C-alpha cells in the first residue's frame, strides 16, 4: 500500500512581479510503505520543491489546472490547514537536512527532545526516547555536547536521531550527505539503510549523489519540473508497485 501518493502536484514560485518559476509542472508520485527511495535530478529540476510538498512544508498550487491530491496513509492532506500540516510534520514525519539544521544553543539530546516536545511527548518519556535514538546513531556519549562541539558527520547523526525519535511513518532527507566527505556519507547512508531494513522505516532522499541513489531501492529521476523516470524497472520489494506503474 502506498504510504505517500501525489497527483497533479504543481508549484509556481513568484520571484518578482513578472518573474515566476514553474518549479513543478504536474507530478504524479507514489511511495510504498517500507521503501527507501531517492529523488535525483539536476539543480532546478524541482526535486527539492517536490520534497517540500511531500513533507507538507509547502502546499501544491490549487489555483490552476486539475486539483492536486496528496495522500498520506490514504488521507488527502493537499489542502490541510497550517496547523494540521504542522501536527503531521511533528508526529508522522522526520526531517533530515543538508546543513544538519540543529539548534546551536541546545545540546545533542535537547535537539532530539525538541522533536519529542513538538509531538506532545514530554519529561522522562522524551528523555528516554532521545537517549534511545542517540544510541541508534551511536552518539550516546555525545548527548550533552552542543552542535559546535561535534563533527559534521556527528551533527548529521544527531539530526537523524531527531528525525527518528518519534518513530515517524516517513523520513524525508534533503541532500543528507551533501556536506559530508565520502566516508561520512557512507556512514550516514548505512544508518538509513539499517533503519529501513530493521524497522521497515520508509525513507525518501533527495540527492545529487549517484552513490546515494545506488544504495536505494528505487531512484526517481526528475528534470524540468517533471518526473522522467519513476525507477520502477528496478527491483522493488513491494509487489503492487507494478500496478502503479501500469497506470503511470
Amino acid at each position, binding site marked *: 500500500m502506498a504510504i505517500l501518493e501525489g497527483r497533479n502536484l504543481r508549484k509556481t514560485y513568484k520571484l518578482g512581479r513578472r518573474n515566476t518559476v514553474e518549479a513543478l509542472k504536474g507530478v504524479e508520485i507514489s511511495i510504498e510503505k517500507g521503501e527507501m527511495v531517492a529523488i535525483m535530478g539536476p539543480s532546478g529540476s524541482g526535486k527539492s520543491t517536490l520534497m517540500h510538498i511531500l513533507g507538507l512544508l509547502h502546499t501544491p498550487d490549487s489555483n490552476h489546472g486539475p486539483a492536486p491530491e496528496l495522500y498520506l496513509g490514504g488521507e488527502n492532506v493537499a489542502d490541510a490547514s497550517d496547523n494540521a500540516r504542522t501536527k503531521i510534520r511533528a508526529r508522522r514525519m522526520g526531517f533530515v537536512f543538508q546543513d544538519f539544521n540543529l539548534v546551536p*544553543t541546545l545540546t545533542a539530546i535537547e535537539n532530539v527532545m525538541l522533536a519529542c516536545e513538538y509531538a506532545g511527548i514530554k519529561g522522562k518519556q522524551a528523555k528516554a526516547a532521545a537517549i534511545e535514538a542517540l544510541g541508534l546513531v551511536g552518539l550516546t556519549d555525545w548527548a550533552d555536547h552542543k552542535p559546535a562541539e561535534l563533527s559534521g558527520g556527528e551533527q548529521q547523526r544527531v539530526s537523524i536521531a531527531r528525525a527518528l525519535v518519534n518513530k515517524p511513518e516517513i523520513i524525508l532527507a534533503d541532500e543528507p550527505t551533501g556536506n559530508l566527505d565520502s566516508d561520512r556519507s557512507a556512514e550516514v547512508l548505512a544508518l538509513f539503510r539499517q533503519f529501513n531494513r530493521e524497522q521497515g522505516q520508509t525513507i525518501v532522499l533527495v540527492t545529487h549523489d549517484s552513490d546515494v541513489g545506488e544504495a536505494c531501492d528505487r531512484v526517481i529521476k526528475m528534470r524540468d519540473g517533471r518526473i522522467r523516470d519513476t525507477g520502477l524497472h528496478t527491483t522493488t520489494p513491494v509487489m503492487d508497485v507494478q500496478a502503479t506503474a501500469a497506470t503511470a
Partner: protein
Amino acid sequence: MRLVRDLGRRKLRTDLTITGIAIGIMALVVFGSMANKMNALIGGGSKYYQDKAIVSVGSMFSGTIQPLALADLDKIRGVEGVAAATPSVDMLLSSDGAAASMGTPEMITGNIPGGDKGLETFRLELSAGRDLTAADATTKVTVLGADLARRLNAKVGDTVTLRGVKFAVVGVWAPTLTAPDKDAYVPLVAAQELFVKSLPPLIQSKVTASEIATGVTVYATKGTDPELLKTRLTALLGGSYTVMTGKDFDALLGSFSAIFTLVLTGVAMLSLLVGGLSTVNTMAMAVAERTREIGIKRAIGASRWRIRREIVFEASAIGLISGLIGLAIGAAMTMLFNDLGRASGNVLFELTLGTAATALIFATVLGGIAGFVPAWHASRLDPVTALRYE
C-alpha cells in the same frame, strides 16, 4: 534554562535593553515611593480632620500662627453639637522660622492630656515609653514622633532641648508616615511658656501664658455634621477666626495629591515607553538573527503558537529581569535618600509592597507586549524560506 541561554546569546544588546527598562522601573519605584509618602501624609491629615473642626486665628497653612484667647473656649463649648473642645499650642520646632522642607515641618504641639475626653479617633501608637498624662500637666516632658526621635537620636529617658528648654523624653510614637512623625508632644502649659517666649518682647508683656492657645480642636457630638458645626462656630466667633474641617482639608490638598501622583507616574511611564520600544527592537533583532532556527523548529513540527509563545516568554523574561534590577536599585535609592534626609527631617519616600509588585508586574507585562509584534512576525515565516536564510 533554554530561555536563559537564548538571552545570553546576544549579551550586549540584551544588557542594554535590560538597562533601559531597569532605569524606567527604577524611576517608577522612586517616584511611586515619593507619591506614596505624599499620599500618606495627605491621607493622614484627611483622616485626622474628618470628625472635627479646628478653630484658629488666620490660616493654619499661612505659616503665621497667632494666639487666640482662652476666654473664647467657653463660648465654643456652649455651641450646640460640640462634644468637647480642647485648646492646643502649635509652633514650629525651629525658632528661626526656617522650616522649608518637603512634607510637613517639625512642630511642637502642646495639648491638655485627656482634653479630647476620649473622642479623638486618630489614635497614635507608642513604640516606646508612655503617653502624656494629667500628672504631667506642669512638667517638662515630651513624647516624640518617630522621625523626630530618630533625627534627635533620642530614646526614652534622654533629655532633649526644644527651643532652648530641656524636656525629658517619656515616650516615642510609632511611625505614622504622616505629620505626627515630626512632632514633639508636650503638656499645654509648657507649650504656652515656649510660645510666649517666642513672641516679640513688646507683646510678651501684654499676654498671660496660661490664657493663650493657637488653636482649639472642636469635637462634634455623634451625628453632628462637622460642616454644620463650622457654620455655627463661624457665626459665633466672627471673621478673624478660621474654622477648618475635613472637607476644607481635602479641598485644599486632595487635588494636589492627585496631580502629584499623575505627574510622577507620567515621568516614570515615559521612561518605560522608551524601555518598551527598546525591547521591541531587541526581540525583532533576535527574531531576524534566529530566522533559520525558527525555520528548523517550524519544519520539525513547532506550531506557530509555540514560536510566538517562545518569543513572548523571552521578552517577558527580559522585562522581569529588568524589573528586578530596577526595583533593587530603586529600593536602594529610596533607602539611601531617606537616610540622608533623616538628618534634616526630610523622609520623602515610602516604598510599599504594592508599588514594588506593580513595578515588577508592569515590567514583565511590558516585555511581553513588546515581544508580541516580533513574535507574530516570526510565527508567520515560511519554514522553507527561513531554513535557507543565511
